[in-house]
């Protein structure tokens, strides 16, 4: 149905031309689901924008043919393309809330497409838009029709985006990272919905993702892209079990999965033995009856409902839950960026919750509790160099200056594997993985006893995630730190944590040693979370 031959795309930038796609060929059959898997910068999204001819300014198709159902998409007029987009080929995107017009009712946005492609008239547009919303299983579609995107959850927004894409019953759907940023159970619901609709309508699909596990679960065939080239193509099982290309091998290895140890994520030549960390019986952190109530529009909202837990010295505790479960609020209270409404936080036996967060900067325990933030980019000052970011806590709390400070910064850079020349760079000159290392170096600069990690790898490519996770394991063994590891990714928590807490709606619903909780989940919610995680086929041991 769709055939791409020798496609290459280049972008004009200030630094000259960048070849984003360098001669790729692929086919999508009728009703087939093709996965395009690759890490950031591999050209997978650009490929789809090119075939839709919606490349950003400066992007240009250089060579190749794109044929859809006998139509040459490269030669088609812009007017014809507008008829094809949304009617024959549709797209859904990542970050669904941003993908919707923020100040237009979602129902009207569905109507716009229906009317544009003459699938509805002004008179019956509303009824048809509601029907389109019902088709993506939105409850109470008539009420949702009137909603604005900011009034809906991320998963609901993605359903609206899907409704817009499928309203005119296209025959090919391009899903560009459709579940990035969504909760794991929402991810499953969205992917199941898309898969079901595709099957029902005999619709072809291109699933663009960085998640090899997700692709293997939903695709008939997968192509792996790297640096604008297709490096491998094949059935999901075959790719996983017997990857041919070294890059595919690396991706397969780096995907967290059942039965793999944290060192297994690294390429075979980099797998040193995993260092052991000792867990003492003495509790480092004791949280008792912690409650957080936010004043909400419709009355107070109880974000955390009286939870208690301990972290022993040297222990790594995983805190798992979906958005709205209260896991971020809990971690922010423990790191003393927020004040609890009631309850105690004992650190080394002293109650640190009694010092207000505004004054905790001067508390003796400040240096012992540090945090690695989720977004490595946003948590760095864009006008400060990597060195200044790492130096900040040293200068402020340890009050060291000059050559001593410089020496300590470069020592820390070595510790986290950040090459020395990069220290003088600004955040925008660093890659995602390098920024994550700067964030970690800053957090461990004061040699804290407890490190709170808030989804530190959520925004990273899997191969970079593998490196960062292994770095965290090494640092833990070296410095004897305790971790509170906040994540929605159970597979990652399994690799890193001794014990795990599962939170739902402000309560801890499940807890225990990681292996026990994950292998024999006692609570139905834990089971739902585990089942929702994509389970890649097990590769042969390498």
């Amino acid at each position, binding site marked *: 149905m769709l055939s791409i031959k020798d496609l290459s795309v280049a972008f004009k930038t200030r630094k000259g031309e960048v070849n984003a796609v360098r001669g790729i060929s692929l086919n999508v059959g009728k009703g087939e689901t093709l996965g395009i898997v690759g890490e950031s910068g591999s050209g997978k999204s650009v490929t789809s924008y090119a075939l839709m001819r919606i490349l950003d300014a400066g992007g240009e198709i250089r060579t190749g043919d794109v044929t859809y159902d006998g139509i040459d998409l490269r030669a088609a007029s812009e007017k014809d393309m507008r008829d094809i987009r949304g009617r024959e080929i*549709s797209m859904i995107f990542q970050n669904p809330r*941003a993908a919707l017009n923020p100040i237009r009712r979602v129902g009207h946005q569905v109507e716009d497409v229906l009317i544009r492609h003459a699938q509805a008239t002004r008179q019956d547009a509303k009824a048809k838009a509601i029907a389109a919303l019902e088709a993506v299983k939105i409850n109470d579609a008539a009420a949702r029709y009137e909603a604005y995107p900011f009034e809906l959850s991320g998963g609901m927004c993605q359903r609206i985006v899907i409704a817009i894409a499928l309203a005119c019953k296209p025959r090919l759907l391009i899903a560009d990272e459709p579940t990035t940023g969504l909760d794991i159970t929402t991810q499953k619901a969205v992917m199941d919905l898309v898969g079901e609709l595709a099957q029902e309508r005999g619709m072809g699909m291109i699933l663009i993702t960085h998640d090899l596990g997700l692709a293997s679960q939903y695709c008939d065939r997968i192509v792996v892209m790297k640096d604008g080239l297709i490096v491998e193509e094949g059935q999901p099982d075959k790719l996983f079990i017997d990857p041919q290309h070294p890059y595919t091998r690396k991706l397969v290895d780096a995907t967290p999965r059942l039965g793999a140890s944290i060192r297994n994520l690294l390429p075979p030549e980099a797998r040193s033995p995993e260092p052991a960390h000792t867990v003492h019986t003495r509790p480092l952190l004791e949280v008792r009856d912690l409650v957080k109530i936010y004043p909400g*529009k419709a009355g107070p909202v109880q974000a955390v409902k009286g939870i208690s837990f301990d972290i022993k010295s040297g222990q790594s505790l995983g805190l798992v839950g979906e958005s709205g479960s209260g896991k971020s609020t809990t971690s922010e209270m423990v790191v003393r960026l927020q004040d609890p409404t009631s309850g105690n936080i004992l650190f080394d036996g002293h109650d640190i919750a009694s010092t207000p967060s505004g004054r905790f900067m001067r508390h003796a325990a400040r240096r012992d509790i540090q945090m690695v933030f989720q977004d490595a980019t946003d948590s760095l000052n864009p006008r400060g160099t990597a060195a200044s970011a790492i130096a900040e806590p040293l200068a402020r709390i340890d009050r060291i200056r000059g050559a001593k400070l410089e020496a300590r910064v470069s020592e820390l850079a070595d510790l986290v594997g950040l090459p020395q020349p990069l220290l003088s760079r600004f955040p925008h000159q660093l890659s995602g993985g390098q920024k994550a290392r700067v964030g970690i170096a800053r957090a461990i600069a004061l040699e804290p006893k407890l490190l709170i990690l808030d989804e530190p790898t959520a925004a990273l490519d899997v191969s970079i995630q593998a490196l960062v996770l292994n770095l965290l394991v090494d640092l833990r063994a070296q410095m004897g730190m305790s971790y509170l590891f906040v994540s929605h990714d159970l597979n990652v928590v399994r690799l890193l944590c001794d014990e795990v807490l599962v939170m739902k709606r402000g309560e801890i619903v499940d807890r225990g040693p990681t292996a026990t909780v994950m292998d024999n989940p006692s609570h139905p919610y834990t089971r739902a979370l585990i089942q929702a995680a994509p389970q890649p086929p097990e590769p042969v041991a390498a």
Partner: protein
Amino acid sequence: MSARLKMILGRVAQAIPVVMGVVVISFLLTRAMPGDPAAYFAGPAADEASIAEIREALGLDKPLFQQFFLYVGDLVRGDLGTSLTTGQTVMSDLAARLPASLELTLVALLLSCAIAIPLGVLAATRPGTWVDHMCRILVTAGVSMPTFFTGIVLIYVFYYLAGLAPSPLGRLDFIYLSPPHVTGFYLIDAALAGDWETWFGAFKQLILPAMTLALFTLAPIARMTRAAMLSALSSDFIRTARAAGLGSRKVLYGYAFRNALLPVVTTLGMVFSFTLGANVLVEKVFAWPGIGSYAVEALVVSDYAAVQGFVLAMALLFVALNLVIDIAYALIDPRIGLN
């Protein structure tokens, strides 16, 4: 909708303490002005006794506290006092002059928006092209020339050389009678009276000063429109709209422009306030009987009632303006007013 209505009512309620504050400050400020109004009013030949008599008549001999209560009492009755220079009540002076300034400012802003917004949109859709560069040149030229200079150049070209414009002397040439007073806006009053000849006469007088002000206000509006459109056009939802095959008009106006309006409205509010303040120079150049020149004249001779009235009128105007902008916000963006 009721939530929005509540928001608007709440906003109106918030304006009340502001107005009360302005009443106090305008009173204190005018009393702090140097010069003795009684001495000025009595004239250069007056002796001590007659000045004291006048001071008593004006109520200026009473304690400040009592003067304030008298002032507030008068305000409540709609009495702003009498101007010492014009001899008219301040209320009637303001009623005659405020519409003149407002008419000029509003027409200038309309003209400015009519040019700047399309220019900004065009520049944003074609960044780096000649349209973009032309926009930049026009905007820079407009803002870098002082208004009195532009005004004089326009008079020189269109009145003196080309003879197209009427003599720059006020709101209406002496051959016309001013239209019956309804709103004080000559264009509206003449249209209401059906007197199109006068309407055209007033329009001709207005066009040069309005152009002068418009040129000056072009820059912020065009720049903000361009920037807001550029950021709106690079948003994710524009990509969604394009991928759904929506036409370029719909994408540009239905999706991008409405989202770009918010910062433009904010800028408009700011431009409006500084134009009202800044058009005193234009009023002087074109002998426009506006409120700016009135205030400057009153200030020079310590005409405290007139200055007080002017400050109060401007403050009320700004409060109303901010209210209108907030309401416009709530109408454009559904996210405002709910959280």
